[in-house]
């Protein structure tokens, strides 16, 4: 009974929470999600972004800007899926 339901629940989760895995998640996708989550967390924590900015000798705004830029493609070009 639950099997059908489970699938739809999973689909709901996947659409609601970006980055929820599925059976076909490959290493690259997983990695991309990890990186995007991390960058978002760095941007949100002011102490952490200050830490990066001090190390790099850049302004906090510049570091934030670069992190959002990096979220676009954090792990380089996507790997073609083998069908």
């Amino acid at each position: 009974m639950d099997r059908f339901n489970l699938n739809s629940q999973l689909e709901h989760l996947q659409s609601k929470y970006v980055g929820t895995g599925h059976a076909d998640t490959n290493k690259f996708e997983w990695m991309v999600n990890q990186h995007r989550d991390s960058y978002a967390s760095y941007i949100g924590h002011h102490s952490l972004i200050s830490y990066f900015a001090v190390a790099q000798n850049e302004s906090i705004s510049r570091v934030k800007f670069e992190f959002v830029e990096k979220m676009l493609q954090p792990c380089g070009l996507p790997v073609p899926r083998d069908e």
Partner: protein
Amino acid sequence: MFLYNLTLQPPTTINVAVVGHFSGTKQQEIVVSRVTRLELLKADPNSGKLQTLLTHDAFGIIRSLTPFRLTGSSKDYIIVGSDSGRIVILEYNPIKNKFDKVHQETFGKSGCRRIVPGQYLAVDPKGRSVMIGAIEKQKLVYILNRDSAANLTISSPLEAHKSHTLVHHCIGLDVGYENPVFACLEVDYSDADMDPTGDAFNSTEKVKYHMISSGFPGGNDGPSGVLVCSENFITYKHQRVPELRIPIPRRRNPLEDPSRGLIIVAGVMHKMKGVFFFLLQSEEGDIYKVTLDYEDDRVNAIKIKYFDTVPVAASLCILRAGFLFVAAEFGNHRLYSFTSLGDDNDEPEWSSEDFMDDDKDIPAAVAYFTPRDLQNLERADELESLNPLVDAKVLNLTDDDTPQLYALCGRGAGSTFRILRHGLEISEMAVSELPGNPNAVWTTKLKSDDEFDAYIIVSFVNATLVLSIGETVEEVTDTGFLATTPTLDVHQLGDDALLQIYPQGIRHIRADRRVNEWKTPGNRAIVKAATNKRQVVIALTGGELVYFELDSRGQLNEYQERKEISSNVTCLSVGEVPEGRQRSRFLAVGCDDNAVRILSLDPDNTLEVLSTQGLNAPPQSLSIIEMMDIGTDASHGTLYLNIGLQNGVLLRTVLDTITGSLTDTRQRFLGARPVKLFQVTIQGAPAVLALSSRPWLSYTFQSRLHLTPLSYDMLEYGSNFTSPQVPEGIVAISANTLRIFAVEKLGTVFNQAIIQLNYTPRHFILHSPSRNFVVIESEHNTYSPMEKQRTLQAKINEGKRFDPNLLELSPEIFGLPKAEPGKWASCIRIINPFLGETTSKYEFEENEAAFSITTVNFHGHNNELFLVVGTAKDANLAPRTCSLGYLYVYQFSADGSDLNLLHKTQCDDIPLALLPFQGRLLAGVGKALRIYDLGKRKLLRKCETKAIPNCIVNLHTQGNRIIICDMQESVHYASYRQHDNRIIIFADDTTPRWITSTVMIDYDTIAGADKFGNFFINRLPAETSEEVDEDPTGNKIMYEKGYLMGAPHKVSMILHYHVGDILTSLHRTTLVAGGREILVYTGIMGNIGVFVPFLTREDIDFFQTLEMHMRNEAPPLAGRDHLQYRSFYAPVKSVVDGDLCEQYNLLPMEKKKMIADELDRTPAEIQKKIEDMRVMTAF
């Protein structure tokens, strides 16, 4: 172990600042987020000083703030976006001086997540709706309105989600009363994610917009639209209108790299009387003024010109009173006043019309300006900020009562070395020498309604000197005061009379210079006296009290009976006459039988003893004073009796205004000398100056009582002082000098002495024989002096000409020119903290950067202390690599003010950790741990282990045990086997931790902190510890099998706590004389705090229960759950949050009562316990 966390100094950084009419009056206020705290500031339009009205700990991360005003209203609300997964709307309540939570709506999970809104906030300028956005995908819009009772209402959220998009920024557009429009800068990544060829990525990448500055006024006021800032360009955009673009002007500098983009980091729009302009700030700190050329709603051109240079801001705020508030990203925050709007200077201006021709391809570097000193702004005030606090040490070098904190702060050329002393900063107005050593000093007005004091009266052993206060302070003789005798007390009496009490009598000097004298009976002398405006009490030798009161005709009448006291009177005090009353009802008498008695001055039972308090030492001084703390309602304070004891202790007791009974005694040790008390006025409120071996001030600030030392010399006697030049000051005696000073910056915990540095400081160390500090500074992305010369020379050789003045810009203001990544500038500096100056400085050349420092006493070198500095050549940040590492060994000169290079030793990685170890050097070089000995030509490698996973950042040792901290993998315990010269790792941690700083608490225990703001304590089980030490051959631990892919034994975590700031240093020390040992920490955001170990099980239970009640009764302001916040990454363990417990004092009385009932105590007992926790160990 069970710890109690207390903040000594809250974070000093500001991540957002907004301006608005938060009290609903004409005056504008600034609300700043100090990340975990919300603070309300006011800029005084006359003096241009910033004043803190309120600060409140939010126990969460505030990420965005915006003011919000409903149409037609005159009061701004504050909307807070945080890590709580909630939107919170606050209102400032000026009467109670607190933030009231108006709405709190939950929309998602807590934490700083990718798709949970909180990062961005945008409001409709007409006050109809607010949008809260996440970095990716989610945006919610709430419609705000008012109900029939004019209360703010909030709708359920409208979703504006867009999958696969990253958001750089969003704002609300001013569209008048049309439907609200929000502008968001988004990047769609769905194509880039799908396309393995990279074409999609490249096309997305084409224009890197990153910020929208606030939108233009719309409707009738302007053309509407937004300014979008991208690297090198500013673009005007609006719906259905062609865009306009101008380049961001760049600094004319021969060293600048034209290929490096320039971005705008902050901006503010200001609108006044139909005109408006933008101030935009670049990442170099230059402010540009951007104006618009438009007709109706058609924009013809945007224009830009250089305005001024100020520190790089997290937020800029313009106040209508003509101020610019710069909330700096790093370093001190500043308030500037506008001297002009930069309209009519000869700065070049660029217009978008000049760049219209070919659509997209304007070269980046076309507009250049010459930076200069401030022309349009003038500095009005400064808020000190330690952010970023890179490293600190707690030492007592000056042999004061409390140790000082030596801190490395700042980034880049604005870096500083700061000496923090616990105490209020004073500003000294005058010091004048007197003919002898005086005993006492008073000031007095002539009439009760005078604004300023007229005389300073100084009493010597056998004479009294009267000085008149005017433009200058001069001696006067015709005042009616008796000059040939010492004086005991002086007071302004009644409406216009003066009173002098001297050992043989009382002189009542009337306004017309008539003098009424009262002589002491027989041979008895007056020993002590206490007065106020209407009452006089004197104590005669032998312990007799005589009481006088002023009648309606201005006559001083003696009360018919005298009071015999069985022992000698040591001090007296009557309080001030309360508003609208005839007299103060209480007299406090301190006697040498170690007791203080409260006597009634009521006509019904005059001089009757109401209550007595026994003391553990004879009292020296008394002061009855009403303090405006939050005890009862706002108009009345609490009546306190302050008792200064001869053993240096100050007692503060609540004096019941009806019965005269004494309750709720708090005590505090002030210093080694008897405590003398004087009543003064601070910010219009009564305060007590307490003088012991150092001066202290007990005052009210933000409805809270503070007792803080003054950073000043030892004083003998003090009095209030007001004059036209010094509206609120203190006059005091120190040896044979008269000092006049004022106390400002109330509420600050530390006062700072600042020494300027050149580059970002990394670490420092004390050279204990000379008490000098050695600081290493290194800066990424910067030219070293030699590299700079070389680059300039190359440009000159290329035939380029430049103005040499361009290189003369002061780096503290303008920063150092950026080189390319991978270039380093670095130096070693010796600082004499007593003189506050740099005694010598050595720059590293050849692209080297210093990362670690220590002093080593190499064996066989007669206790000579050597300095070892670890550097890396061509260091790269990510991945962390270098071409070579070096260990420099220096000898100190005889006076410790200079260095002499002995030799340098190559190594293969960056040495990040150095430690003296058994007369040798222990060095963490990358992942290798080595022991070096001092050789003639270089350091000699004696022993090595490479069993550390990533990179060693911190080392500790005790005996043969070494604790090694890894950059990612927490702590490792190792043992050094002397006989076979090996380092063997026998225990490690099960949790990965990105260690920032650690301190060894005892042989088996280490406290540390990680990059995510967690604090933890790890302990090696006792049996493992013994087993390892008792293994004589060392074979057992050597051949033991690893466990869980690591060392054979594991340490256990005994304590965990999320501090909310990255801790940069940890110290085990004491902060108060005679206090117990505590842990002191400093955080990168400028946080300074302590962890205090509990002594008894009862205290733990008490504070845990109190904390639990506080979580329920005072949920954090930004909507974060307190328990969840303190358990951000791992559940909080064995730590009570003292900051939350201290918020108990802010609760309304009924809640205090309720919690107190639950704990079977009275509110006063709870408050005392909370206060004791702080004052017994810290300040």
